[in-house]
C-alpha cells in the first residue's frame, strides 16, 4: 500500500496473507467463510498444486509473529472459468472465528456502487518508500465510474465491465505489488462489504492511473456454486 497509514492491529480481520509453502508472503486474500478465501487468479500462476500455498490469518505483522496467527493448508484451488482475475481457495480445515479472524460480507449479485462510495484497500504490499513496511496498511479512496476511468487521460478503455476503478485522480495513494488478491471493501451501513479483489494497475499511485479491481458482485453465483458443490 502506497501512502495511506498503518492500520489498527486486527481491524481488518478478514485480511489474509497468501504464502508459499515455506512461508513467504506474496499476495493478499479475503476470508469470506471459515473455510473459504477469495483471492486473485493471477496469484495462483506460480503453481496449480494446492500444496504449494499456505494461508495465514489473524496477523498484523507480515512476520506473523503474533499469538493470534492461524495457519492453514489449502485443500483446493478454483480459478474463475472465464479467465477473470478471481479465484477461490478451500482451506484444509476451517479457520477459528474470533476477535482477530472474522469473515467479510459479500455484496448482492450485481450490486452496483453508486459512484460516491468511500472504499478501503489493505495489504502488506510494496509501500514505495512511504513507510509502514511489514505492518498491515490501509488506504481509502473513492470508486471511480468505469465511464470516467476509461477516458483517454485515465486508463483509456482498458477497464472491462467486470472490473472497477478506485483511487485518487491526483495519485499519491494506491494498492501496489504484493497487495494483489486482497480486498477492496466499502462501508455499507455499519459493516464492510467486499466489492473488489485487488487486480492490476499502471504503476502504483501515479496521477490519473487509479487501481483496477475485479467486481466481486459479478461473481456471486460462481462463488456460491463453488462453495455449495465443494
Amino acid at each position, binding site marked *: 500500500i502506497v*501512502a*495511506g*497509514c498503518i*492500520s*489498527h*492491529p*486486527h*481491524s*481488518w*480481520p*478478514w485480511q489474509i496473507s497468501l504464502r508459499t509453502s515455506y512461508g513467504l508472503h506474496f499476495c493478499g486474500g479475503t476470508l469470506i467463510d*471459515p473455510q473459504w478465501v477469495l483471492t486473485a487468479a493471477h496469484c495462483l500462476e506460480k503453481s496449480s498444486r494446492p500444496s504449494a500455498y499456505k494461508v495465514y490469518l489473524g496477523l498484523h505483522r507480515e512476520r506473523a509473529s503474533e499469538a493470534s496467527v492461524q495457519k492453514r493448508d489449502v485443500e483446493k484451488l478454483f480459478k474463475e472459468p472465464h479467465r477473470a482475475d478471481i479465484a477461490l481457495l478451500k482451506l484444509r480445515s476451517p479457520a477459528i*472465528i474470533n*476477535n*482477530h479472524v*472474522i*469473515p*467479510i*460480507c*459479500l455484496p448482492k449479485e*450485481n450490486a*452496483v*456502487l*453508486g*459512484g*460516491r462510495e*468511500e472504499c*478501503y484497500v489493505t495489504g502488506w504490499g510494496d509501500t514505495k518508500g512511504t513507510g509502514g513496511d511489514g505492518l498491515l496498511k*490501509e*488506504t*481509502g*479512496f473513492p*470508486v471511480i*465510474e*468505469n*465511464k*470516467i476511468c476509461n*477516458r*483517454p*487521460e485515465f486508463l483509456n478503455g482498458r477497464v472491462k*465491465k467486470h472490473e472497477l476503478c478506485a483511487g*485518487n485522480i*491526483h495519485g*499519491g*495513494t494506491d494498492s501496489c505489488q504484493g497487495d494483489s488478491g486482497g480486498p477492496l*471493501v466499502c*462501508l*455499507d*451501513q*455499519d*459493516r*464492510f*462489504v467486499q466489492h473488489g479483489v485487488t487486480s492490476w494497475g499502471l504503476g502504483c499511485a501515479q*496521477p*490519473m492511473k487509479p487501481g483496477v479491481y475485479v467486481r466481486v458482485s459479478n461473481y456471486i453465483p460462481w462463488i456460491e456454486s463453488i462453495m455449495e458443490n465443494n
Partner: protein
Amino acid sequence: QGDILDSYVRTEGAWLLNPKKEVYRTNSKEECAERCEAESKFTCRAFLFTSKDQQCLTLAENTKTAVIFRRTNAVLYEKRIYLLECKEGKGVNYRGTEAKTQKGVPCQKWADTVPHKPNYTPEKYPNVGLEENYCRNPDGDERGPWCYTTDPATRFDYCNIPECEVECMHCSGENYHGVVATTTSGLECQRWDSQQPHSHGYLPENFPEKDLKMNYCRNPDGEPRPWCFTTSLTKRWEYCDIPRCTTPPPAPAPGRQCLSGRGEDYQGTISVTESGNTCQHWSSQSPHRHARTPENYPCKNLEENYCRNPDGEKMPWCYTTNKTARWEYCTIPSCDGSKPEAPAVDVPEQAQISEDCYQGNGVTYRGTASFTLTGKKCQAWSSMSPHRHNKTADQYPNADLRQNYCRNPDADSRPWCYTTDPSVRWEYCNLKRCDSRVPVTLPKPPQTTLEPNPDCINGNGKDYRGTVAKTARGRTCQAWSSQKPHSHDYFTPMTHPEAGLDKNYCRNPDGDVNGPWCYTTDPRKAWEYCDIPKCPPAQYECGKSKFRPKLCAQR
C-alpha cells in the same frame, strides 16, 4: 410517455413532522401521485406513501427546508421541478435555492422587513414560493427571478439563474433538460434507473440535481456535451446531438482575478503552475492531448494558457508544457488575502481521526470526526447531494461548517451531520462528551450466528424463517398469498420473493422495527405483530471487526 413517477425523485424511509398536508387512502404510489397532481387545496410539491397502511399524504411543504425524519416503510416522492436549479421562461415557477444576486450580494429573506420593507411577502403571496431568501419571480418580471438584497443601498436586484434548456443547450449542456433520447449514431438510450444492458453508478437517487429522468440525454459529469448509456450491447455509452441554443448563454457571474472557493470563476491571467511549469494553451494538443478545449467547453473561459477550473477541481489548474507533467494546480492569491489552501497531502495521522470529544452540547466542537453513530460517512456541508439542506456556511457563518466534519450549527443536543446515504438524511455523530465518563456505545446491531436459528429472531427479525403463525394477541395469521379477509397487493410472495412469505407464517418483509407481523384472519383487524423470542447474542457478524479501523483516506 413513461409513468407518472418519472417526474418524482424518491427517498426511502423519510417522514415529515406535522407538514401542511392532505391525507388519502390509495392502493398504490401511482394513485398517490395522481392525488398530488390533482391536489387543489395547495400546490402539491411532494407526497408520502406508506406501503403497509396504504396511506397517501400530499404535501405542500418545501422538503428542501422541512425537517425530515426517518421512518421505515414510508417513501417520500419529491417533484423534480422543485429540485431543479434552473428556470423555464421567465422563471415564475423557479423553486431552486439560489440566494445571491447577479452581483453576488446575499438576498434578504422574503419574510424580513430590514433592510428593505418588501411589497412581496409570503403572507400576501402564499403560492409563489417566497421561501427563505431564495430568488423568485412573484410578479412575472420579464428579466426573471430577483430578490430584495441585504445591501441597504440596493433595494432589489436580479439573480443569475441558468435557463432549463429544454429544446436546446447552452455551453456543454449541463443544464439540458430536454427529451432527446437517441445518440449521435441513432442508438436508443438506456433508462438511467436501469442497469441493463449496462450497469453503471449514475443512480438517479444519488444525483437528484442532475435530473437523470427516463432515458433522456444528460451531462451529469462534465462531458463536453450530453450523453447516455445505450441499449446496444456493443456500445456502452455515446454522445447525443443536442442543438445549441441560438440565444446567447446566460451571462456568467462576473469573474474574479483572485481565488474564491474552488476558483471556478477565476478569470485572471496567471499561466504558471505551482511547481513553475508554464501552462499549455487550452486550444493546443501538444505536448498533451486532451478534451478540455474551448470548443468543448465554450462557457469556461479557456483563454490562452491561463489557469482555469472548468471541471470542479479543487482549484485552478492547467496542462503544462512539460512533457513529464501532464497537468498541475496553479497558485492563485486568495481573494480574502489568506494563503491559498495547499492540497491536503500527508495530513498527520492523529489529526485524521481524532479521539476528541465535545463540550456541553457540542456547539463549539471543532474536531475532524466525520462519521455517524451507525458508521455512515458525513456529507460535506457545502454539498446539496444526496440531501438538500439550508445548513450552509453562508447561513451559519459562526458554525465552522467545513468539509464534512461533525458540527452542531443549530444547537441540537450533540454534533451531527447529513449522511452520504441517500436514504438516511442525518444522524448524530460518533463522538463522546468530554465531561462524560462513560464512552459512547454504538447501538448494538442485531447479532446473528453464522447459521440463522429458525426459532428466534435477531434484531428486527427480518431474517426470521420460523413457523409461528399466530399474532401476539392469539389471532391466526392470514396466508400471505390470500386476499381474504384483508386484500393487499404490496406484501405478497410475488412482490417480495426474498422475504420468505410462506404460508401464513409471521414475517417482517418491510423491516419493521417492532419485528415480524402478519395480516390476521379476523376481519376486524387488518394486521398485528407476532410474539417471537429473541435469540441469545451470538459472537460475530460478517464485515464487522472488533477493533475499530482507522479509515485513513488520503486526499
